[in-house]
């Protein structure tokens, strides 16, 4: 609680911010007679100096000079008078020390007035941040290129620009005991499912951790099944994707200091959708979707299938191919499984290395690593060429999936399938695949089955199937997906001319 004695307040505040070199404070007298004391405090570089000095303090001084407070009403109305003098709409009043501390740490300027047990919190936020730039991780051929930044407000703004609907709500929470990170849930009030919303809110409110440094923390703390390698919330850097999700009835979780927002709930199907699927022609995009699903399958199963067929059932392969493979393998000293694992781990190593290296070197590593190491390995007789091809194909397939977080699941499944195939051949492969399938079929994301609409598709009359393996033309996608409130499920109305054709 703050007191009405200014010096007491000063003492409290300075004690809290002792040893903080970036804490700026100033005690200044105002008024014609210079007898009213103000205490201004803020954190250096968290505030916008222009706003603070040019707008707030400047106008305050001038205002008080021109309208000196009357003697009688000095103590009671001083605060109100001062408030009028501050020319910004974003002012709050607080009597709680904790709130004041938080406000200072968030970039507000606190103004104490001698004689008042209240403080003014003036919003003067202006910290340094990266401007809105282009995405580098989710590149599309056609579509907007702006990306979310680390600033919470900028992110919500980017979404608001796309959805000009007052029903777009931003519910804010502060999560993390020490970081007090702003976490915001953005949704369309009438389209979102209320129970999903309540579930999300309760999960966020129940987070009890000291620090939230990135949206990834939130994703892991609110997910349904922590044991699963498959992601249960989507992560995106693109505002158009986030806006599309909100319009479907999903919830976007914006986390301060993170340029990646979460989209919940997420089913496996959503991970195969990219933004520009909807900006281009439906035929070519259906083809692209099919390729992506095929890529997903190949990324997980190719190495396992190769081992199963080559080591257990070589009768399935055409004869010439078999002889080529056998001939290539004659020089290799390792068993096929070891060969496969070796190349695969080398590939994963390259992948990791490529991420950490800066720009141009990172690109070069792909070529250097792939070509030279692969080629050299084949010529040295460490691996056979077909294994290199299989591993490369499998790796490439994993790059074709639009969402990187899903790839993690496939990469790990790949090893499971490889192990099962190595022991029991095609039968083992199927056992491993069944195990994965069982896991996926029971996985849920905020109550929604993960494999929707491939399972339980009849909940929404199979209309979700229009946007999975292929994409039907836009005018045919009349209903919103399962995420939306059933009462708001119609997206295109009967007035659309093309529907009549």
């Amino acid at each position, binding site marked *: 609680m703050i007191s009405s004695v200014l010096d007491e307040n000063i003492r409290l505040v300075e004690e809290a911010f002792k040893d903080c070199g970036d804490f700026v404070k100033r005690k200044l007298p105002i008024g014609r007679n210079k007898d009213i004391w103000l205490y201004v405090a803020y954190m250096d570089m968290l505030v916008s100096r222009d706003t603070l000095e040019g707008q707030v303090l400047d106008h305050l001084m001038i205002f008080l000079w021109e309208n000196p407070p009357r003697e009688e009403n000095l103590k009671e109305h001083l605060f109100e008078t001062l408030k009028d003098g501050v020319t910004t709409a974003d002012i709050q009043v607080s009597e709680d020390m904790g709130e004041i501390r938080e406000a200072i740490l968030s970039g507000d300027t606190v103004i104490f007035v001698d004689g008042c047990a209240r403080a003014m919190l003036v919003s003067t936020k202006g910290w340094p941040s990266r401007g809105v730039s282009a995405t580098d991780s989710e590149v599309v051929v056609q579509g907007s290129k702006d990306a979310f930044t680390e600033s919470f407000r900028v992110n919500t703004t980017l979404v608001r620009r796309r959805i000009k609907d007052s029903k777009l709500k931003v519910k804010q929470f502060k999560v993390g005991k020490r970081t007090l990170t702003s976490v915001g849930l953005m949704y369309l009030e009438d389209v979102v499912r209320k129970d999903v919303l309540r579930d999300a809110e309760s999960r966020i409110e129940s987070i009890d951790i000291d620090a939230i440094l990135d949206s990834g923390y939130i994703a892991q703390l609110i997910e349904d099944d922590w044991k699963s390698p498959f992601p249960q919330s989507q992560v995106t850097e693109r505002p158009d994707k986030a806006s599309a999700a909100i319009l479907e009835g999903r919830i976007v979780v914006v986390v301060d200091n993170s340029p990646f927002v979460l989209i919940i709930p997420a089913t496996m199907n959503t991970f195969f959708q990219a933004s520009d699927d909807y900006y281009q022609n439906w035929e070519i995009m259906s083809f692209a979707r099919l390729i992506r699903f095929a890529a997903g399958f190949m990324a997980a199963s190719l190495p396992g299938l190769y081992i199963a067929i080559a080591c257990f059932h070589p009768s399935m392969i055409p004869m010439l191919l078999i*002889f080529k493979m056998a001939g290539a393998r004659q020089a290799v000293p390792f068993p096929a499984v070891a060969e496969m694992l070796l190349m695969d781990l080398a590939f994963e190593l390259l992948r990791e290395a490529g991420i950490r290296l800066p720009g141009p070197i990172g690109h070069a590593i792909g070529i250097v690593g792939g070509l030279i190491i692969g080629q050299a390995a084949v010529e040295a007789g460490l691996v056979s060429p077909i294994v290199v091809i299989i591993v490369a194909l499998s790796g490439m397939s994993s790059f074709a999936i639009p969402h990187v977080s899903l790839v993690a699941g496939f990469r790990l499944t790949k090893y499971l399938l490889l192990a099962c195939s190595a022991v029991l051949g095609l039968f083992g492969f199927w056992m491993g695949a069944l195990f994965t399938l069982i896991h996926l079929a029971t996985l849920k994301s905020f109550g929604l089955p993960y494999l929707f609409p491939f399972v339980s598709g009849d909940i929404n009359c199979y209309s979700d199937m229009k946007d999975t393996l292929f994409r039907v033309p836009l005018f045919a996608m009349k209903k919103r997906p399962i995420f939306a409130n059933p009462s708001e499920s119609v997206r295109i109305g009967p007035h659309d001319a093309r529907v009549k054709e």
Partner: protein
Amino acid sequence: MKSKLKLLFPIAFLFLASGCWDKVELESRGFVVSLGIDLGGGESPFRYSVSASLPSVNGMRDEASNDSSKTVKKADGPDISSALSLMGMSSSQKLYLGQARLVIFGAELLGDEERFKEAIDACERNHEIGRKIFVLSTKGKASDILEADIGEEPSAGIYIENYYRNASSSGTLKSHQGLSNIISDLRSGGNTLIPEVELKYTQGGDAYLELGGCAAVKGFKLAGFLDSKQTRGFEWVMGDARGAEVSVPFESGNEPLSVSSGRSKIRFQEIGGNLECNVDVKVRGSIAESGFSEESLYDASALSKRSVKYEEAIKQEILDCAKLLQEDFGADAYGFLDMLRKRSYSAYKRVEGEWEENFKKMKIIPNVTVDIISAGAIK
């Protein structure tokens, strides 16, 4: 606790998956492409002599390399599986029959009913050998064919497979090959025809394989061999004669008919207590060559003259083959009994008992119509 118990099942699976019993590395498999089964004869006390041709992996991989060698393994044994396992003992690789393309039976083996049955059974029961494998017969020994050094293609199996896929000549029972068909025939009557392959030598001493003709098996025993023409006579009846070239002497040289389709319809009739079989063959073809004659081949009368000649020729081929099968061999390779069974059960019941006699007595009457579709680009 519940979720931990659920993990019990995958863990149980992990315990079970503690070894690979069936994993065989690719390079340690010896891929057998052709198999030959002969009667074990001479000094060998054993009943079977099995030979297997394994093409060299390096030769197959690198077409540029001239290493077109193959390994032919031979082993004698009291039965086929022992012979195979004996063969396996002489190799550092594990013999694998999953890619086997060809099985050749020697004529001696075909002549022995019991051993032929065993051989067929061994091929069928072996789960590595697929049912689509080609089965051929030969007048000599199967191992000779496998061992011969054929210029075009080291391995007989691959040669035969390519042959059947690419070549389009008739007389080789193209539609009748395959272990599955042979077993079907044998199961429903004990009679079948097995295509024949022979090893021949050119003037220069190079070896080559010639396909044509077939071996007639009656009651699981070899009855005799048919030559190319006679086999074609069989194919006319079965409606399989696509690709045949019927060469007929005409006024100014030979004029061959290139058959594009030959459909046949078989009707049975009982006339005066005797069974008659009418074979209606409808042939369509085009004239491939004419002797530079002045006559226009697009004239209706010219065409009909030639049609008649072709019909005669085809009829004769059918009758020749029928005579051979009926009188000399007494083997119903056509499957007439089975057809009768399907069409007229009562008649079948009557003739079933003494079918061999009835088959010999049966009159086969071919009615051939030839439609000449085109005569080339020249008038």
